[in-house]
């Protein structure tokens, strides 16, 4: 049952700081300074957690807990990063997670099993993403409005499907995924999915034409169009991607909570946007980093964890969250201007 205590991953990653800063210029260096500063924030949090609650915080189980809790919102944030990077916004992510989770769990109560839940969640996510994408790319709607409409209607539909009742999952194979017995080398399967989505997201952004096009569309859509990019189709794909991430996140949430509820995913849109922004993604589009977004999510989850371990109340947590968003963005502006 007990796993050996592994050191927090960020302490190892702090090393290259000194070598990087002076010699590099341009976009790459700026991105790295940003990521290093986020790692610094995370390191400071780890130190605070370690000092205030050494036994509970620096514990394998706690590391597993923090990463598990980051997984659901983390997967959503990867999709959101692509959308924001392209100059758009997806306000409907929380509602899509809710709709996908209740649709999948009402199917679950009809005994379609593990595959039924997984496919329903992913398909509902993709379906909502498709609607968003078509409205925005081909219907010419502003992303803010189109996804706001999706937010309202998906939440309404989720409420209608459940009739306000919590859908409890009874399929053992689904529930087991969230239990200790199914950990792979001490890593919860949810965290593995989160890691996989992060790696795929990073490859997609940094190593494929798709990623370059997403950045180009966000930076200057007209230039992108003149360069031969099908801007509309690219936009459609991006909202599809965000919907897909929401569907995966909904499945993770079902595994985690053993249920589907229309209140699921409440305020995910704000958490995901906040994480992407402090991770260095420009709200106006044209720039974004997957690693930064994921670090943003980890910072928020670690703060929540430290506060809970120290028995601080939710009001203090919310204030601190706001303060950290402001501080992170201010620090980034300074570092961005300096180079």
């Amino acid at each position: 049952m007990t796993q050996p205590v592994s050191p927090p991953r960020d302490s190892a990653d702090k090393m290259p700081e000194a070598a990087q800063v002076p010699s590099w210029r341009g976009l790459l260096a700026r991105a790295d300074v940003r990521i290093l500063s986020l790692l610094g924030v995370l390191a400071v949090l780890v130190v605070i957690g370690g000092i205030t609650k050494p036994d509970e915080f620096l514990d394998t189980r706690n590391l597993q807990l923090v990463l598990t809790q980051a997984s659901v919102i983390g997967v959503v944030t990867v999709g959101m990063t692509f959308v924001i990077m392209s100059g758009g916004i997806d306000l409907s992510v929380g509602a899509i997670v809710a709709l996908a989770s209740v649709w999948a769990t009402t199917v679950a109560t009809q005994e379609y099993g593990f595959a039924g839940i997984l496919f329903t969640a992913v398909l509902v996510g993709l379906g909502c993403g498709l609607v968003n994408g078509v409205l925005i790319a081909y219907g010419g709607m502003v992303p803010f409005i189109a996804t706001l409409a999706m937010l309202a209607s998906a939440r309404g539909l989720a409420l209608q499907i459940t009739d306000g009742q919590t859908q409890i999952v009874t399929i053992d194979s689904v529930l087991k995924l969230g239990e200790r017995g199914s950990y792979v080398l001490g890593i919860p399967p949810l965290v593995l999915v989160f890691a996989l989505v992060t790696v795929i997201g990073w490859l997609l952004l940094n190593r494929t034409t798709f990623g370059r096009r997403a950045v180009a569309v966000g930076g200057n859509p007209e230039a992108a169009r003149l360069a031969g990019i099908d801007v509309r189709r690219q936009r459609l794909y991006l909202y599809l991607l965000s919907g897909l991430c929401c569907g995966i996140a909904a499945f993770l949430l079902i595994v985690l909570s053993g249920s589907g509820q229309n209140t699921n995913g409440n305020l995910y849109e704000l958490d995901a946007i906040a994480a992407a922004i402090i991770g260095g993604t420009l709200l106006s589009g044209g720039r974004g980093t997957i690693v930064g977004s994921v670090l943003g999510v980890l910072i928020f989850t670690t703060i929540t964890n430290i506060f809970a371990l120290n028995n601080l109340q939710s009001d203090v947590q919310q204030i601190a969250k706001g303060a950290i968003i402001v501080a992170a963005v201010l620090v980034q502006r300074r570092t961005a201007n300096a180079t």
Partner: protein
Amino acid sequence: MSHIPSRRGLLFGTAAVSATAVLAACTSNETSDGDEDAGTSGQPAADDQPGKQVTIGFAGPQADHGWLNAINDQAKKRAQKYSDVSLEITEGSNDTAQQIGQIETLINKKVDVLVILPADGKALTQVGLKAMRAGIPVVNLDRIFNTPQAYRCWIGGDNYGMGFNAGQYIGEKLKGKANAKVVELAGIDNLELTRQRTQGFDDALKNYPNLRKVARQAADFTVESGQAKMAQLLQAQPQFDALWNHDDDQGVGALRAVSQAGRDDFLMVGGAGSLSAMQAIKQDKGVLKATVLYPPTMAASAIDLARALGQDKGVGGLAEFEIPASITLYSAVVDKANVDQYMPTGFR
């Protein structure tokens, strides 16, 4: 209540009036030989016999939560039970402005009695006053208005009592244990009711000097938040003896976190009385041993009171001619011993 009835309303009204007349004749025949004052002098208490036709307007919050959903269900089912009650129900809303608009619509429709479960009692006080001034008596359900002028009768649960009874139950169970540790998983912290539940719980714990509350975290009444907050609490407290969770819906998530952490070394008391919680108590396999009620049947009782109000009757079983001004329900503790009795009131 002067309004122009529709033709159908007129027909129904006439039918109801004649039915009442017939019934009145019957009852007067039956009772004439016995009681002298009960049948003739004052108002009789409300019973299941059809009486004057009453239109009840019902305005509740959005049923996005098991308990609130049960509230709407209870109200509808109870109204259907009476042939002399027609229910005008508005679509639930958590938006104060929208709910005010809905209640104003019901006032304009000139319903006979209003039953209001406000999304926010304080914010809706003015519209309660407006209804009362328009001559429509208000039955205020659960979340209380700021002033008694805004309602004729208040009926609701006892949040303080919930906390208190949960604390007493835990206290009795851990009586012999020295230095027992207690943990609290609260509901939404910016709701008055959450503070009352915590206050009652703390007061009860004071009666047991061997108990100490070592941690308290607030969740959001949702499964998701229950799982997340409970997982943190379990990590923060490697050992404790009892847990009180304010709400059975978030309790689904809390229980999930408990099983994910593989913990079974404490007893848990839930809150509100959901069906799944009662089933778990009956099975007696997990940590959940009891739940303190916050019964959604109060909505059915509110319909009873509204009907009695509309028919100028008192409440059966009481000596009074009028319905009371305020009724606070009891937060019974449901555990394995009495769970069968309460199971039918459990909500999904």
